C-alpha cells in the first residue's frame, strides 16, 4: 500500500471515526449495565439475608424433642414442647388439599388440552388465570362462609382449611399440568388412535403416562406453593396446642399459623432467678418452626425440579 499523504489522511480520519468514543453514550450504556446488574444483586440481598437469618435463628432450636412433641400444657417461658402437632397438621391439611386439587386440576388440564374448544375453554383458561390472583385470605373466608352455613357459626376443622387451600392450589395445578400435557407430541396420540385405542384410554395410557414426571413436578411445586399459606388457615382452621389427626373434627395447628402465634405471643415474663424459664422462647419457637417450614418448601421445590430432570422422557 502506498504511504502517500492522502492515504495517511484517510486512514487517520477513519481511525477517528471508528474510535469515536462518544463519551455520553458510552457512559449511559455503562451506567445502565451497572444498574441492571445492580437490580439483580439487589434482589439477592433479601433472599440471602432471609435464608441466613432463618438458619441462624432457627438452627439452635431444632432438636428431636422440638420435632416430636406438641405444645400441650406448655405455658410461659417453658422451653420444652415442640412443633409435632403443627407439622402433622400441615401435612394432613395440605394432603387433603392435594387430594382435592390434583384430580380436579389434572382433569381441567386434560379438558383444556385434549377437548377444549370454543367459548367454555376460553373462559376456563381466562378464569383459571384470574383465580391464581385470589387473595389467600379471601379463600379462607370462602371456606368459612361455605362450611358455617352447614355446620354452624363456630365450625373450624382441618378440612375447611384444605378447601381454602384447594381454591388456591387448583389454578396452579391446572396451569403447570396444562404446560406439561401440551408437550406431548400429537404423533403419539395419533399412533395410539391408529391402533384403535379409544380416546380416553389414549389419554390415560399415552398422554398421562408420557407426562407423568412433568405432572409430578407441577403437583410438587403447587404443594410447595400452598404449604406456607397462613391467613386462610388462621381464619378457617383456628389454632390448638394439641395433636389432632382428624381433619373433620376440631381445630388443628399448622406450621405457618404456629409461627405467627408464637411470634404474636411475645416475651414471657420470668421471675428473677426462675429455673427453666426462657423469656424469648416463643420467638425461638417461631424461628425453629420457620426453619422447618422453609426446609420443607425447599425440599419440595428441589424434588419437583429433579423429578422432571431425571424422569422426563426426552420428547424433543
Amino acid at each position, binding site marked *: 500500500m502506498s504511504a502517500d499523504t492522502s492515504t495517511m489522511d484517510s486512514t487517520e480520519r477513519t481511525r477517528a471515526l471508528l474510535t469515536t468514543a462518544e463519551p455520553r453514550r458510552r457512559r449511559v450504556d455503562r451506567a445502565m449495565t451497572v444498574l441492571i446488574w445492580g437490580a439483580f444483586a439487589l434482589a439477592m440481598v433479601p433472599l440471602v439475608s432471609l435464608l441466613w437469618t432463618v438458619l441462624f435463628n432457627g438452627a439452635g432450636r431444632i432438636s428431636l424433642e422440638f420435632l416430636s412433641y406438641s405444645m400441650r400444657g406448655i405455658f410461659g417461658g417453658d422451653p420444652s414442647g415442640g412443633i409435632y402437632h403443627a407439622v402433622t397438621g400441615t401435612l394432613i391439611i395440605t394432603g387433603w388439599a392435594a387430594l382435592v386439587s390434583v384430580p380436579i386440576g389434572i382433569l381441567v388440564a386434560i379438558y383444556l388440552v385434549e*377437548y377444549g374448544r370454543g367459548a367454555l375453554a376460553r373462559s*376456563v383458561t381466562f378464569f383459571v*388465570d*384470574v383465580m391464581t390472583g385470589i*387473595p389467600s*385470605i379471601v379463600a379462607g373466608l370462602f371456606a368459612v362462609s361455605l362450611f358455617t352455613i352447614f355446620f354452624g357459626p363456630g365450625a373450624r376443622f382441618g378440612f375447611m382449611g384444605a378447601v381454602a387451600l384447594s381454591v388456591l392450589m387448583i389454578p396452579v395445578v*391446572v396451569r403447570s399440568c396444562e404446560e406439561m400435557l401440551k408437550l406431548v407430541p400429537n404423533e403419539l396420540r395419533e399412533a395410539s388412535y391408529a391402533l384403535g385405542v379409544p380416546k380416553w384410554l389414549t389419554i390415560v395410557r399415552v398422554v398421562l403416562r408420557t407426562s407423568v414426571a412433568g405432572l409430578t413436578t407441577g403437583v410438587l411445586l403447587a404443594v410447595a406453593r400452598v404449604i406456607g399459606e397462613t391467613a386462610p388457615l388462621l381464619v378457617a382452621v383456628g389454632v390448638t396446642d394439641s395433636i389432632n389427626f382428624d381433619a373433620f373434627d376440631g381445630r388443628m395447628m399448622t406450621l405457618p399459623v404456629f*409461627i405467627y402465634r408464637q411470634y404474636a405471643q411475645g416475651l414471657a415474663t420470668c421471675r428473677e432467678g426462675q429455673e427453666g424459664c426462657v423469656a424469648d422462647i416463643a420467638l425461638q419457637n417461631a424461628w425453629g418452626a420457620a426453619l422447618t417450614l*422453609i426446609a420443607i418448601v425447599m425440599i419440595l421445590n428441589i424434588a419437583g425440579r429433579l423429578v422432571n430432570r431425571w424422569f422426563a422422557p426426552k420428547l424433543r
Partner: protein
Amino acid sequence: MTTTDSPPAPAAPVRRRRSSGDTERGFSRTFRWIATGSGALILATLAAVALFLIVRAWPAMTASSAELADAVPRYPDDTSFLAYVGPLVFGTLLAAVLALLMATPVAMGIALFISHYAPRRLAQVLGYLVDLLAAIPSVVYGLWGIAVLAPAVGPVWLWLNEYLGWFPLFAGGASPTARVLATVSVVLAVMILPIITAVSREVFLQTPKLHEEAALALGATRWEMVRTAVLPFGQSGVISAAMLGLGRALGETMAVLMILSPGFLYSFNILQAAQQQTIAAYIALDFPEASGLAVNALIATGLALFVITLAVNMAARAIVARRKEFSGAN
C-alpha cells in the same frame, strides 16, 4: 382437528359435519363429560366464592350503623358501612401501590438482566434464584421483616422524615420501631418481585431477533438496543406483569399483619405508626375473635378485597391475553 372442512363445491350435497362427539362411544364419551365438567367446575368455584361471600356479607351491608357500631369492634359511630371500609381500602391500595412503584423498576432490571445481560449459561440458574423469593412463605417474610428489615430501615426512615419531611409521604414524624407502612411496602415489593420478573422476562425473551439486530446494526449500544427494540415490544407485557404484582400485593396478609402497627385513617404519612391498615391484615387480626354481625362485617370487607383484586387481575389477564398466546405466567 376431527371436523372435516371441505372447500364448498358448487351444488354438492350438504355435508354432515362430524364432530368428535359423534365418533366417541362408550367410556370415551363419559370421560369427555367428566373432563368438561371439571372445566365448568372452575367457573362454578369462582362463582361460588363470589356468591358465598355476598350471602355472608349481606347482613352487614344492610345493617344499620347503630347495629354495626354495637357488634363490630373499632366501628366508628354514626357512619355508613362505606365509611367503615373506606380507610381500609385506602390503606390496602396505598401499601400495594407503593410496593408496586418500588418493585416494578427493579423487576424490569432483573428481567432484562436474565434475558439480555447475564451470561447465557448462568441465566437459567439466576432465574431460579429469583423464583426462590416466591417460594418463601409470607409468614417467614413477616418474621424477617420484623427481625431484620425494620431495624435496618428504621434509621433511614428517621433520616427521610427529618430532611425530606416536607414531602407529604414522609411527613408527620417517623416511628423509631419502623413498624410502619413504608417498611411493609418494602417487604411487599420483595414478595411481588418474582411474579413481575417472571412475566416481564417472558416478553423480553420474545423480542424478535430481527429487531434487536436492526438496532445494533444502526450502531446502537446494548442499552440503546434495549430501549429501541426490547422495551417498546415488551411494554404491554410489563404493564400486565405489574398489574399481576399489584394483585398479589393487595391480597398479602401475613407480612402486613406482623409488621404494621395499624390505624384507621386516610393518611399518607407512611413513616408514622398507627396510621393505616390493610383489609387482609384487618380480617386476619380480628376474625379469630369475631362473632355475630362482626363476622359478617369482616366478610364484607373481604368481599371488597375480592372485588378489587378480581378487577385488577382480570384487567391484567385481558392485556396478557390480547398479546398472542403466552404462557408461564403464574
